[in-house]
């Protein structure tokens, strides 16, 4: 099999013959043409890998041929070497600026041309290999992208449907994963006795692994709640679940809450998570004062023996709860400051009525504060209003 196909274009038959002789002897298939026009006709029939062309020829010159070959997407990748009697740097640059890949000055030694052809074919082989690999990579990337999109859609399905409604609360969320899918999750579960169970969690890291664990966290929470009990028992159970099933560096911060609408008590466990804000009378909107529902505790998944602590707060009809993950308040601005809890409280000092409107306002004002920096971590914000 020929090592490759070379099209030799020259109006001098003797040059065509010499080059053909050497190239054929070296194992190439050689096509010939007497000018640019003939070369294009030849190319319509066959596909050379390389064109070696004289510049000055009747009917169609070498520079015109080069321009046509290089401007046609179908032939653009064919290597083009100009053979030219115009020696010197100026004409060399002129030839290369036409789009030619290389130049050989005339008069030439056939061996020189051959050496150049050999090196060009090595380049062509490399390029073909790179193109093949690139094609494979592109196909692989495309598959991964499709799967990520599917995973992202599935993960969205794990979040509560909006507008969120439980017997005593109304809620909404803004969920902004950093990379298509993320490690944030939350859930609001109505309980048979009229109480409501709530959970928000942030799994360390981003991407697929974090997303898988976040699904596990949700399932674990649902299992714990189904078994009855209180946030303290839920946290312990979830911690054991996570310790059992995650690897060394995978943890989740979480906040777990239990609202009793009869006693107006919210019992909660903070497992290394950002403390939520409570806004007394916040559901009606306007100027208000937020309080931080303090508490501290270990992240979930560190060690099955670690203790947790339960806290208690009042949560009255008309009150509002702002749950979030750290990605919301930990964007570093150009001046190296971050919104942090204090900044979020400033934003929450005046919010509209209606959970959706309030959530939109928080996100918009946070974005305005961070600018030009953007969210880099997964961001989840949940606004939960106690019904009147």
């Amino acid at each position: 099999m020929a090592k490759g196909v070379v099209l030799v274009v020259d109006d001098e038959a003797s040059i065509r013959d010499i080059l053909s002789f050497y190239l054929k002897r070296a194992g190439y298939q050689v096509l010939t043409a007497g000018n640019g026009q003939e070369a294009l006709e030849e190319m319509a029939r066959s596909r050379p890998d390389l064109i070696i062309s004289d510049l000055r020829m009747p009917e169609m010159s070498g520079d015109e041929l080069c321009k046509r070959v290089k401007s046609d997407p179908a032939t653009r990748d064919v290597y083009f070497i100009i053979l030219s009697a115009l020696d010197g740097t100026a004409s060399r640059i002129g030839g290369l600026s036409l789009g030619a890949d290389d130049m050989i000055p005339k008069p030439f030694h056939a061996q020189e041309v051959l050496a150049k052809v050999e090196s060009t074919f090595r380049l062509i082989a490399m390029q073909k290999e790179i193109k093949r690999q690139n094609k494979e990579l592109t196909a692989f990337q495309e598959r991964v992208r499709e799967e990520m999109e599917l995973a992202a859609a599935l993960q969205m399905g794990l979040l509560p449907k909006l507008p969120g409604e439980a017997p005593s609360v109304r809620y909404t969320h803004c969920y902004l994963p950093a990379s298509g899918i993320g490690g944030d999750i939350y859930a609001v579960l109505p309980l048979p006795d009229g109480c409501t169970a709530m959970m928000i969690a942030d799994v360390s890291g981003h991407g697929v692994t974090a997303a898988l664990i976040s699904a596990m966290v949700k399932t674990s929470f649902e299992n714990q709640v189904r078994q009855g009990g209180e946030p303290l028992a839920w946290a312990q159970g979830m911690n054991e679940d996570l310790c059992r099933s995650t690897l060394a560096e995978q943890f989740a911060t979480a906040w777990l809450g239990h609202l009793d609408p009869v006693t107006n008590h919210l019992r909660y466990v903070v497992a290394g998570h950002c403390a939520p804000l409570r806004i007394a009378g916040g559901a009606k909107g306007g100027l208000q004062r937020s309080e931080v529902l303090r508490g501290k505790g270990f992240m979930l998944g560190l060690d099955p023996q670690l203790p947790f602590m339960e806290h208690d707060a009042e949560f009255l009809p008309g009150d509002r709860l702002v749950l979030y993950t750290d990605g919301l308040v930990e964007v570093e601005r150009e001046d190296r400051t971050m919104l942090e809890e204090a900044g979020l409280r400033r934003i929450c000092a005046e919010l509209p009525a209606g959970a959706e409107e309030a959530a939109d306002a928080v996100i918009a004002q946070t974005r305005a504060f961070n600018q030009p920096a953007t969210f880099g971590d997964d961001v989840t914000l949940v606004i939960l209003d106690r019904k009147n």
Partner: protein
Amino acid sequence: MLNIQTRQEGTSSVVSIQGKVNFEVTAQLRDVIRETVATAQPKLLAINLEGVSFIDSSGLGLLVAARNSVDKSGGKLHLCCLPAPVKKTFDQTNLTNYFSIFATEQDALRGA
């Protein structure tokens, strides 16, 4: 990129970190800690956090994993010189009670 320096003090290794410890740099820090533990096999690994301006949950996860792995090999991990914002993060996650934390590097090395 984090600026990480390691040095040996007798049977102890000291790893000093400067910069923001977040998801982007955990791989770098993990490699350094792993290599230090594997090559020096220190009885005590002290991590100096004086130059750390911020640590996120992946950074915390890495430190916890480091503690657990040093524990398993019979060694100890001590943290020292936590700047205020880092201290706050440790408090919030209760990790202040999970790690042995010292005010100065000397204290951490002495294991007081």
